[in-house]
């Protein structure tokens, strides 16, 4: 029974081993590897789905499987499969490193999957590091045709990551020093009292959260985002921009809900970070010309929106954060899917490179439009419904100031999202640009993404109900 609960993780470990074995050979076949990654992650997804209702604890209570962790594992496994599907051929990665590349993506996902089940501070830290270290290695795998920016990106990611982990660990030491335990279950009755009586506990919590702010790219831990997005290969950025954020959300949910129902001590600090994140992200994105940098700053802003639901703290707020995280995965995947297929020579795309996209690749243009309009929060996309639920939950908790500032930010962000749409739809093709052709499976993925973004936006109740049921386990 317990093995069944741990089976998704075992499958991912098996997948990592397969990749490792393949990496020992001379001529790796990327298509087969891609197939293996998709198959294994879908298997892991199916196993998780089959055990969705089950719950239990493993490893002396450090590892907990419940509906919350299962929901996130579903999303993470689906995310890994989609990312592998969206980036066929790994054009941007050196050929001989393909097996290693998939190996590290798998290990990073494994870390995130473990993170969603970890309920003990050291386990959390371990899972966090597993997911980060794998990426530190994967970022410099980019084809060395673009100077050395991938090394710079990797180094920045390492340095910021190490600093964030250090802060996190430091915060844990305070929490442990005050409470005498590292188990979240034992912390949860103690922490509300500590937070209201001991300023040190507030400082400890904020420091502890820094590690996850880093993953989520929330101000002030966001500085790595634009450079890493820009320096990493398009396929690596697709991964960095999506899955680690999902992992960060679950831990933020778990840790902040520890602080109890009345989190006013924390919420003003988190509120400031959320608003600063939205504002800095959106204002910086206004002046970007490199699309990946633009999306990086937009992700900083979205981290801010997402925090609204977490700060609201109600069931609806938490469910909204989960719903929005899923939506964020889909819409970012849609955007990066298009970027990957457009950038046939693995360059970073500028806004001008999108010119006349509606003629060169109508389907890609439409996928991009769906993703961008969803990021901008325009109905009937999942981005709109997500923002709507987030703002509603924050409003219900009386966070009027945050809601108004969030809405103003949403209005600002329209400008740079429209720049992308305008380039793709309203400018004419240059003479030398040719049609972009994509194969059938990518077409299917594109249609599927559009479908999911709109369908989940129009009919959100199933996903919201799942999320609400999941947050009951917090």
């Amino acid at each position, binding site marked *: 029974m317990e093995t069944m609960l741990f089976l998704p993780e075992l499958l991912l470990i098996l997948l990592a081993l397969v990749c490792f074995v393949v990496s020992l050979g001379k001529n790796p076949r990327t298509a087969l590897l891609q197939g293996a990654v998709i198959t294994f992650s879908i298997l892991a997804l199916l196993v998780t789905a089959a055990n969705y209702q089950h719950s239990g604890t493993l490893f002396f209570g450090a590892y907990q499987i419940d509906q919350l962790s299962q929901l996130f594992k579903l999303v993470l496994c689906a995310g890994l499969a989609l990312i592998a599907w969206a980036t066929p051929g790994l054009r941007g990665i050196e050929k001989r490193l393909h097996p290693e590349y998939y190996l590290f993506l798998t290990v990073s996902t494994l870390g995130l999957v473990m993170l969603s089940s970890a309920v003990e501070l050291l386990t959390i830290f371990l899972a966090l590091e597993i997911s980060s270290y794998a990426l530190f290695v994967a970022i410099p795998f980019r084809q060395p045709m673009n100077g050395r920016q991938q090394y710079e990106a990797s180094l920045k990611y390492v340095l910021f990551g190490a600093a964030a982990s250090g802060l996190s660990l430091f915060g844990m030491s305070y929490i442990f020093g005050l409470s005498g335990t590292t188990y979240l279950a034992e912390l949860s009755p103690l922490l509300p009292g500590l937070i209201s009586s001991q300023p040190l506990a507030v400082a400890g919590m904020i420091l502890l959260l820094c590690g996850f702010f880093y993953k989520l790219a929330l101000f002030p831990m966001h500085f790595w985002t634009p450079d890493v997005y820009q320096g990493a290969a398009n396929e690596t950025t697709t991964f960095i921009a999506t899955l680690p954020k999902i992992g960060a959300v679950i831990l933020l949910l778990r840790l902040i809900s520890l602080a109890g129902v009345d989190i006013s001590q924390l919420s003003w600090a988190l509120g400031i970070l959320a608003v600063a994140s939205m504002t800095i992200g959106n204002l910086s994105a206004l002046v970007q010309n490199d699309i990946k940098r633009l999306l990086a700053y937009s992700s900083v802003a979205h981290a801010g929106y997402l925090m609204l639901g977490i700060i609201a703290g109600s069931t609806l707020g938490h469910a909204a954060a989960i719903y929005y995280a899923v939506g964020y995965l889909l819409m970012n995947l849609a955007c990066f899917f298009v970027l990957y297929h457009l950038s046939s020579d693995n360059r970073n795309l500028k806004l001008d490179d999108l010119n006349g996209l509606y003629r060169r690749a109508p389907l890609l243009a439409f996928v991009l439009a769906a993703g961008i309009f969803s990021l901008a929060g325009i109905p009937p996309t999942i981005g709109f419904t997500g923002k*709507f639920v987030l703002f509603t939950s924050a409003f219900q908790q009386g966070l009027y*100031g945050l809601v108004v500032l969030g809405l103003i930010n949403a209005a600002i962000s329209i400008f740079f999202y429209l720049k992308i749409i305008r380039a793709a739809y*309203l400018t004419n093709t240059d003479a030398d640009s040719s049609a972009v052709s994509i194969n059938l499976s990518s077409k299917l993925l594109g249609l599927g993404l559009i479908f999911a973004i709109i369908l989940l936006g129009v009919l959100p*109740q199933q996903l919201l109900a799942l999320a609400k049921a999941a947050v009951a386990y917090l």
Partner: protein
Amino acid sequence: MRRPGQGMPYPYNQGTIVEQYLIFNQLNYPIISVLLLLPLIGAVLGLLFKSDKAQLRWGLGVTVATALASLPLYTQFDRTTALYQFVEVRHWLPALGLDYAVGVDGISVLLVLLTTLVMPLCVLCSWSYIKERMREFMFVLLVIETAMIGVFVSLNTLLFFLFWEAMLIPMYLMIAIWGGARKDYASIKYFLYTFAGSIFFLASIIALYVQTGSFFIPELMEHSFSFTFQAWIFLGCALAFAVKVPMFPLHTWLPAAHVEAPTAGSVILASIMLKLGGYGFLRFCLPMAPEATWYFMPWLIGLSLISIIVGGYLALGQSDIKKLIAYSSVGHMGFVTLGIFLLNDQGIKGAMLQMINHGITTGALFILIGIIYERTHSREMSVNRALGAMMPVYVLFLGIFSLSSFGFPGTNSFVSEFLVLLAAFSKYPLVGALAIVGAILAAAYMLRLLQSMVWADSDGHGHHDDEQGNGHILKDLNAREIGTLSFLTIFVFWIGFYPTPLLEMMDVSVTHLIDQIGDGLNQAGDDNLHHAFSSWGNKMTGLLTTLKP
């Protein structure tokens, strides 16, 4: 508490929406869903047609079919009740209490009819104007029609907002793809203004939902909220609607958008989209925040007067005909908001009639500008001079609609402006006197336009040169153009001489609306403008203190 009359049997009793909101559908088929789906399905099916001609015929067919399908709204409309009619309710998101609820009352029904009747003309005036990407153009046009009808018929705040936002992208595309030289600037400006406004509208919708747990408009109208809450709701909604109307000082997107948009886009903007703002005031601000309405009334009257006068004054100085009409729209819509915020029977009826009339007259004027632009490739008054001899039929229509535009007796706008002025004089003579200035300005700029375009001194050669500098004779209107304009001319004189049928349709609903906001009389002091102005500062400070979490 403010429940009108005895309820008719309620056929769609499905649980969440109960009989108490007094809504019904007198037809045995869902007419409003038909109106919403016809253009939408037409838009999707239209993508199958390849040739431009087929596109145009299909678009015309779909819009005419929608127009015909909407006629029962006029013939079967029950003029004796303020209840919502032709109502349909379907569950959509039970978790959030969100239903698909549509219906019309005396306030929205005329605007729905205006939309369905103007859209075929938008197709007709694009017949030779649009030269590229016809398939996308027709798609966008039909989607806009669905979205606009959707806004007018929504009985659910979130549904209203969805349709409201759904207009944004297609209209943006229409300006940005088929627009003129500065289309980038104009389209972005349009999008940003409208989106920024609607964001606060969304905040108000959320606030109403959190306060009452309901998105259902008739239910929200029954609630009485605290003054502070009303004031915030009012401001949030009013910002969105004031951008749309547009009201000074939020009007600057309009001239840019109008001038750059293709003819069909200008007609849609002028005839229908601006009305969404006025409609929003009537549907949201007045009934849901009556006390706040009374409280903010002096300010909105003031802004309306500034819109009337500034719009007229700016129109007087334009040499670009399209820009002139665009600024005149600001002035005419100023009469609409003025009428609404006089908060009495004549004022609101005048405002609603003025919305219809502005839709007809200004729509026609934009069609006329499109026609002359197709012939001379210029919108400058100095180029399009002395057309009287060459294009007599054109000039005839130009004359009719220009007279209508400044409210010449016997034309449609006279009736509505007269009603608004009557309301203004009976309440605040000073306001009436200032509004008269706007009416005089309108006469001045329209006569200047007429004088220059029709009779101006032609020195005999060179005015209508083509690119090679060869003078040539301009062709007068063809049958399609005459048909388009004649259709609108009927309404100019019908409403001008016999507006009673339209006034009858809105009568009961307006009375009901006045009932709903009448309570404010005691709170803010109807005749005491000074009092309202002097206590403004105190109350604003009070409002701001409520911002604290």
